[in-house]
């Protein structure tokens, strides 16, 4: 090969680089180690994390059982090591599963069209906001304070640079649902979108219909966000929404210390050309057989460049596939049953540890333990190998005495009894 290249050593291939830019020393990284040692390294790191703890954490990332079929499917080399399906003839596997994913998301959310996934729920929020701005021609966004705090942070980062004013409206201190009067007061004709989460960050089913009325009356779109996808197994999808966006981590995506996850954006037919990210469409091949391909690519960065609907290139194909397999395994009946179990578990816990808010909740709720500040309570729980709920003080100063507790189908009754005992 060197002879073909006309050099006597591979080093010569770099000779044309200016001397000044060359790295004159080896990289200061240890030499390579064996497969066994690599496994050992990560096992040691894993051992330094929580192992064997019962957890009551939710807050946007949920502990749900991952059916074994999920990893069986995504571990296939054809799915794992394949590229973006730009060459439709040899990517029908990926394209078909994405088409099925888009369909299932529409069925789940009640929307007409869904894209092939976003990076995650948090980045789907500004993408939805930018969509609303494009669709309405207006520039301002109103967002509920009961939307996940970190999602709101991400929205602000994007909005600041787009010259998109973002204002928050509050929640009712007793019910935990959005303060409709506050929303009405802050609403105006310049608002492109009203963004609401349901179930909200506190786990409470929120006032989507009422928010829709307020938004639509003034020509704004309603964007509904969800972080706990399992809730849609039982809850009516938000039909009044113009855009639904959220997080699919609950569908067989490992918590994995924060990522990778898969977000989604779904919307009504009329906004189809405003949708960011990849879309798979149905067509035929030259023999007349049904075939799928990426479509409406003119919205995207590689064609539209600075006028694109977004700069996003990747979708979370492999992660979305995990969700697709999950939705297939549980199916029509299973997702409902799974949601019912989540509902039952959380309400059992709520029978022992009284919720602070009166609003109806799914599998999470806020609790205030008399005489036990959150940090103290959680310290006691850790001794029993229990990770308690998220102390809310870091996000909501007025709730600094409370925690956000989550119970899923994986939460054992005995652990809930133990938590309740410690909380006495």
């Amino acid at each position: 090969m060197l002879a073909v290249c006309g050099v006597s050593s591979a080093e010569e291939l770099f000779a044309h680089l200016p001397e000044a830019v060359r790295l004159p020393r080896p990289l200061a990284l240890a030499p390579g180690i064996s497969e066994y040692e690599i496994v050992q390294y990560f096992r040691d790191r894993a051992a330094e994390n929580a192992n064997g703890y019962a957890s009551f954490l939710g807050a946007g990332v949920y502990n749900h059982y991952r059916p074994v079929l999920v990893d069986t499917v995504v571990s296939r080399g054809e799915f794992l090591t394949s590229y973006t399906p730009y060459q439709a003839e040899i990517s029908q596997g990926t394209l078909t599963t994405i088409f099925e994913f888009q369909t299932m998301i529409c069925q789940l959310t009640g929307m007409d069209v869904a894209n092939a996934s976003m990076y995650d729920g948090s980045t789907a929020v500004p993408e939805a906001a930018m969509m609303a701005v494009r669709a309405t021609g207006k520039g301002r966004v109103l967002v509920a304070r009961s939307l996940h705090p970190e999602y709101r942070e991400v929205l602000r980062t994007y909005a600041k640079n787009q010259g998109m004013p973002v204002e928050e409206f509050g929640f009712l201190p007793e019910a935990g649902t959005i303060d409709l009067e506050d929303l009405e007061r802050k609403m105006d004709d310049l608002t492109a979108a009203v963004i609401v989460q349901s179930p909200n960050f506190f786990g409470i089913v929120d006032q989507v219909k009422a928010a829709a009325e307020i938004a639509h009356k003034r020509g704004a779109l309603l964007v509904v966000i969800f972080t706990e996808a399992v809730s849609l197994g039982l809850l009516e999808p938000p039909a009044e929404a113009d855009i639904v966006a959220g997080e699919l981590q609950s569908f067989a995506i490992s918590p994995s210390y924060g990522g990778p996850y898969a977000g989604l954006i779904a919307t009504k037919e009329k906004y189809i050309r405003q949708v960011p990210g990849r879309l798979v469409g149905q067509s035929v091949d030259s023999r007349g057989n049904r075939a799928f391909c990426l479509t409406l690519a003119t919205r995207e960065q590689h064609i539209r460049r600075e006028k694109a609907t977004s700069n996003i290139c990747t979708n979370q194909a492999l992660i979305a596939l995990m969700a697709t397999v999950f939705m297939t395994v549980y199916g029509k009946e299973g997702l409902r049953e799974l949601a019912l179990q989540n509902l039952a578990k959380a309400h059992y816990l709520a029978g022992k540890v009284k919720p602070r808010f009166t609003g109806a909740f799914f599998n999470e709720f806020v609790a205030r333990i008399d005489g036990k500040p959150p940090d103290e309570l959680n310290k006691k729980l850790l001794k029993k190998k229990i990770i308690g709920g998220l102390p809310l003080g870091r996000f909501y100063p007025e709730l600094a005495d409370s925690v956000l507790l989550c119970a899923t189908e994986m939460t054992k009754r005995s652990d809930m009894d133990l938590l309740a005992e410690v909380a006495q």
Partner: protein
Amino acid sequence: MYPENYRYTKEHEWILVEGGTGTVGITDHAQQELGDIVYVDLPKVGAHIEQGKSLGSVESVKAVSDVYCPVSGEIAEVNPALADKPEILNTDPHGAAWLVKLTLSAPAEVEGLMSAADYQTYIGAEK
């Protein structure tokens, strides 16, 4: 091929001026370059567009082209046929696939546009 009574721009638009109205479209050369048209994005009736500014765009599968206004004016009509059948832009770009009709605000601007003969020379040279 290129109607004598139309005027043409360097960006491959045509305009047919009749009294104070201009009918605007893209040329046969333009539709050939783009390939199969899949979508046309047109302005709203009532919008005022300056000469040289974008009044919309035409999309094929792999490309998007802005359409620039040949003569300043206000959009009086938008071709309703294109929403359902964008493909007529490929088959009849100078006739049935007109894009918009404008009420001209600066008719003198037509003077600076190319005749059919000049346009044919222009696209011949471009090759």
